[in-house]
């Protein structure tokens, strides 16, 4: 992934060209400078327009990008949010195991996920889809996605939560035409929301239906905005880009567990470090008979399922 092409000279040259374009679009050099000092929505838009790929930004450029995110949230919601940029920790690879004997289909994980990850409420975006199936067969094609939550668990049925599987070999990353999505060293597949062009090829290529698209500007009530965000995670998203579960990168990189794991009333979800031989998830993988969805595709999901 390392690219030596981006030495200082080319950055300066390209930066210069972009700045020139920027002044043209911004309506003249002096105007653009003035606006940049005031940091209004328009100057932020142009700065964002010319913003580089997350992995190509210098630390200073990244700081400026994060300041823009904070200002935008203030303008949109009147909320002071914090944007972190915690890097992956060495020796950590996150994974999850879901005990489907314990899952009762109450969908508390779905609600907690929406609140934690600043997902659009209108139109509704949910990363987790809990499906209801008949006992006796694991058949997604005959699953019920819209069962009524009040009556669960229903007799003769079992429940299976699905979300982004954080594949070790993710088809969405291979397919993305602009490298706007990639796999982090600690295993999460993330999206640079400012680099995504919204072609939705990743939605088409995901075998788990793990990705969602912002068909309009995300609608979140201002009093429900979670102010603790991560650049690659739950920061507010623009319209027209793809998003997905990131294993709550803003929480897990600080040592906490995911919101869905914390919210599950039956403790069906086990989340942890796959590289730590003493972690609970490693014990589950060693002691239980586990399976993964569509294993034959070779995507190597990092969400396992098991029964008691």
């Amino acid at each position, binding site marked *: 992934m390392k690219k030596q092409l981006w030495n200082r000279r080319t950055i300066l040259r390209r930066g210069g*060209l972009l700045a020139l374009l920027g002044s043209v679009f911004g309506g003249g050099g002096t105007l653009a400078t003035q606006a940049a000092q005031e940091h209004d929505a328009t100057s932020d838009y142009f700065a964002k327009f010319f913003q580089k790929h997350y992995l190509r930004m210098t630390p200073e450029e990244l700081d400026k990008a994060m300041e823009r995110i904070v200002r935008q949230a203030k303008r949109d919601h009147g909320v002071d949010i914090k944007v972190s940029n915690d890097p992956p920790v060495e020796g950590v690879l996150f994974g999850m195991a879901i005990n489907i004997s314990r899952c009762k289909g109450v969908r508390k994980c779905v609600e907690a996920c929406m609140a934690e990850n600043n997902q659009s409420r209108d139109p509704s975006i949910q990363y987790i889809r809990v499906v209801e199936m008949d006992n006796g067969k694991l058949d997604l*094609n005959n699953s019920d996605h819209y069962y009524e939550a009040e009556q669960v668990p229903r007799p003769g049925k079992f429940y299976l939560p699905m979300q982004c599987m954080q594949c070790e070999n993710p088809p969405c990353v291979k397919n993305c035409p*602009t490298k706007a999505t990639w796999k982090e060293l600690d295993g999460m597949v993330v999206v640079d929301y400012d680099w995504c*062009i919204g*072609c939705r090829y990743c939605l*088409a290529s995901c*075998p*788990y*239906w793990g990705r969602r698209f912002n068909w309009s500007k995300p609608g979140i009530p201002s009093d429900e905005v979670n102010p603790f965000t991560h650049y690659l995670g739950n920061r507010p998203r623009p319209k027209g880009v793809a998003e997905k579960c990131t294993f709550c990168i803003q929480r897990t990189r600080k040592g906490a567990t995911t919101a869905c794991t914390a919210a599950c009333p039956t403790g069906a979800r086990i989340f942890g470090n796959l590289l730590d031989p003493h972690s609970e998830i490693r014990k589950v993988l060693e002691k239980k008979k586990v399976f993964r969805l569509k294993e034959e595709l070779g995507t190597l999901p990092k969400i396992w399922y098991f029964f008691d």
Partner: protein
Amino acid sequence: MATTLFEFFRACTIQAFKGDRRYYGWMSGWTLLVVLGAIAYSRQLDQGLIVTGMSDQVSWGFYISNFTYLVGVAAAAVMLVLPAYIFHRDDFKAALIVGKSMAVAAVVMCISFVTVDLGRPDLVWHMLPWLGELNFPHSMLAWDVVVLSGYMVLNLLLIFYILFIKFQGREPEVRKYFWAVLLSIIWAISIHTVTAFLFSVNVSRPFWNTAVLAPRFLASAFASGPAFIILVLQAINSLTPLKVGEQVVRLLGMVVTVALQIHLFLIFVELTTDFYFETEHAASIRYLFMGLRGVGNLMIWTWASMLMLLIAVVVLSVHKLREDRFFMNMALVLVMVGIWIEKGMGMVVPGFIPTPAGEIMEYSPSFTELMVTLGIWSLGVLVFTVLIKISIPIWLHHLEMKALMEKSISKGRKKS
């Protein structure tokens, strides 16, 4: 050289705007539709793709359907180039410029359809090499960007070269540009193969994930594309001074017939493979033909398209009927519409139904989508008309630099 170039483009511009009432009526009609499409698109830009019928479940729809169909039309120009330059059929050379113009117009439409499908069309520069981050060679979409833009440049250069030489009163020498012709033949096949790969490499969608998709794409392209060309050639024969020989239409009719036969055979192969021992991988094709769990919006379209193609293949395969201009034209229209349904909505949309998580969500295009689509097709008609308007008189040496110069000199004399 520079002045010649300047004169060439000046003459082209003047020629594009010169015309009788009928020409102006035709152009303003299509321009009006382009404007209506642009208005619909501005609404989509403002509110987001929520104004379309698409969803997280069916995340590509009418735009990508039309894109896929038009890549085939663009590729079909090869069926005029191939006989002209490889089999040395000189009567095909007159039709060449029509085919090339059609290819350019089709690629313009393709690029427009992909662009309106983007959530962030303002950030399309992220796909540019050097400035952006094109995920080449991993992403099939990156390949598609490369082959489509390359095909457009190649065709524009070929048209420009031939016309520019003719404009100077000379005849272009085949041996000088033969390499470009050869390249454009291979390239035409590649654009459609890559577009098929765009779908068929997705393990997430069993309906697309089949090796027969690329051959099917090519067969249907070589049926629907030349069908288009034959109809356009007849119109050009009666409306313009360019006369394309009867033999050209006949041979192209043969091409449509054989390609359609192969295409229908490949559909039969797919159906047999999917239904002989039906697995869950056949869920999409079942949805397409018979409906799934009580829903099947596409069924009526699928069967209409199958019926059209079957009628067309019978008419075209019987020599007496194909020789009859009326029957042939009717069959060609059926081929065009039938394949537009089958390869557009009938190929793109069922790939998403059911979703990989087993959910069934149906799709139908919204009014905005229909208007934007109409606008882009109209843009294609405009581009094609202008290209044809300019290239026919130059091709026939009716519009030459020498004549223009003499005219302006005599004008100058009159004034003094």
